[in-house]
């Protein structure tokens, strides 16, 4: 076993065993017992494959310390309808994903890949998209609308994300967005922005169809970053896409794919650019690179491009000029606690970022106590929400996540009908929605870092053939030899 990016020699004497879990062999993807081990300020996921030998993958490094990054969370399994998409399990997690009855979290987001074609040919594409070409065949809108309705039936009220390939290549995208807008509380577009830059009418059509916001691939503020990650200079195109979205009143979240030594030192510049374009730009959503799909060969045997969740947080805070501090970040209450962090701010007229939660206290309850973020158990007690009279904080994690991103990333359109009767709540809502700016980070798992406990707590799903929901990281999982788990 070589020591590729993110790995260290196996089981040094200083390794401190923390607990057991399950993982996969990074080569053949078979399920294995695994150990979480600490070495100094770094934490590793170690396992032994009978065929391919021992392997240790870095999963955490630095502050906040692994031991203290915790968030109490109640299991909230997917509905029976979603589970029924798997009739039986026979391969074991994660080979049977559908999700199965062993999954512990409901969907909050479902990706719908409406085309495999893409007008970029990124060296780092995890989806292994096909190059766009003249005469490329697209599925007809009627079939795709039917699948939207199936997703609604399987997943319930989730954020629906149009993805691909590059979804703007589909000529009927506005029509599909309009359909999705009637089915889901929020509709998100995952786009490289090329066509949004080229066609101002597209942004206007999508906004008119009810698109909630755009997740715009935005890796940095320099063209050398795009040459490395996307194969060509793209900064002017990204800025044109931002202009067109702004003119169409279409909110944008900047989504950098982060690679150590490539663009992790540009985080401060991306943050400042995003803030300068707020409130049209609603925030940053950072995605440290994983290895899967097409990016396998460009990383294996190459440099260490990995960034763990705490390293990413430290990097953006250090480059923020004092605007952000690590203690502003919270673990998620929806996906597994080690999958993401989020910071939510109010951007003041003077350009300061004020945390929108009280960081002076702990909003999470001690074990056995009731706190302001205690997940609801009204249903468990046999009483409806109406009967218990509880309104605040009794919504499950996935539902809260859907509500929150809807408030934070969609357009700030709160306007009380009668301005003469604005009260303190109205004023707060209007100000907060206009000024909110979020910095979030999602640390996806790959074959080196996959922890099946985390995977079972996943709330981001892909709608996959035939008619099932597969956790995002399982869907995109590739072994180091290129074999794929679900794609």
């Amino acid at each position: 076993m070589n020591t590729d990016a993110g790995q260290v020699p196996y089981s040094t004497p200083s390794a401190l065993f923390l607990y057991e879990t399950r993982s996969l062999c990074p080569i053949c993807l078979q399920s294995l017992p695994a150990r979480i081990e600490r070495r100094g300020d770094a934490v590793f996921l170690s396992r032994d494959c009978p065929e391919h030998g021992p392997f240790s993958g870095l999963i955490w490094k630095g502050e906040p310390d692994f031991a203290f990054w915790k968030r109490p969370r109640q299991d909230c399994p997917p509905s029976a309808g979603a589970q029924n998409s798997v009739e039986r399990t026979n391969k074991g997690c994660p080979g049977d994903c559908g999700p199965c009855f062993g999954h512990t979290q409901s969907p909050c987001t479902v990706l719908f890949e409406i085309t495999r074609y893409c007008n970029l040919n990124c060296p780092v594409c995890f989806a292994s998209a096909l190059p766009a070409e003249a005469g490329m065949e697209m599925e007809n809108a009627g079939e795709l609308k039917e699948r939207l309705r199936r997703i609604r039936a399987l997943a319930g009220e989730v954020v629906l994300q149009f993805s691909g390939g590059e979804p703007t290549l589909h000529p009927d995208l506005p029509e599909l967005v309009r359909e999705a807008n009637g089915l889901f509380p929020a509709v998100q577009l995952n786009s490289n922005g090329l066509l949004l830059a080229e066609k101002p009418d597209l942004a206007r059509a999508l906004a008119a169809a009810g698109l909630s916001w755009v997740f715009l691939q935005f890796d940095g503020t320099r063209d050398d970053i795009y040459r490395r990650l996307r194969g060509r200079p793209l900064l002017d195109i990204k800025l044109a896409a931002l202009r067109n979205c702004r003119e169409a009143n279409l909110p944008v979240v900047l989504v950098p794919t982060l690679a150590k030594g490539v663009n992790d030192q540009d985080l401060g510049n991306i943050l400042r650019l995003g803030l300068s374009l707020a409130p049209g730009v609603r925030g940053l959503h950072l995605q440290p690179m994983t290895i899967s799909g097409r990016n396998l060969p460009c990383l294996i045997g190459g440099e260490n491009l990995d960034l763990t969740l705490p390293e990413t947080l430290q990097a953006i805070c250090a480059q923020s000029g004092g605007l952000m501090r690590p203690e502003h970040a919270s673990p998620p209450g929806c996906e597994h606690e080690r999958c993401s962090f989020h910071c939510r701010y109010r951007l003041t007229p003077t350009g300061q970022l004020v945390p929108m939660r009280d960081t002076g206290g702990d909003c999470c309850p001690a074990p056995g106590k009731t706190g302001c973020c205690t997940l609801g158990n009204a249903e468990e007690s046999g009483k409806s929400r109406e009967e218990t009279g509880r309104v605040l904080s009794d919504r499950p994690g996935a539902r809260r996540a859907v509500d929150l991103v809807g408030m934070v990333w969609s357009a700030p359109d709160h306007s009380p009908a009668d301005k003469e009767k604005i009260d303190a709540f109205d004023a707060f809502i209007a100000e907060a929605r206009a000024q909110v700016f979020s910095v979030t980070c999602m640390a996806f798992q790959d074959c080196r870092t996959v922890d099946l406990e985390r995977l079972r707590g996943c709330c981001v799903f892909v709608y996959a053939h035939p008619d099932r929901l597969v956790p995002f990281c399982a869907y995109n999982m590739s072994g180091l030899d290129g074999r794929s788990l679900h794609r």
Partner: protein
Amino acid sequence: MKAEAGEIRAEGWTCASCGSPLELLPADIAYMGSSFQVELPRCRKCGFTLIPQDLAEGKMLEVEKLLEDK
């Protein structure tokens, strides 16, 4: 938005504890480090405050969503 400030009425409500009629009076509401001063039906004698259902499920819920953690 279900509830507007102007729709909140104290008329017709009486305090279950002492029987006094409720009146629209200032109330301080605090949640996760933010505070809001609004007028709500209250009992001048006991201090009990009525939060109408529309307000709880409307503006207050929206405020909660903005303040609470993901």
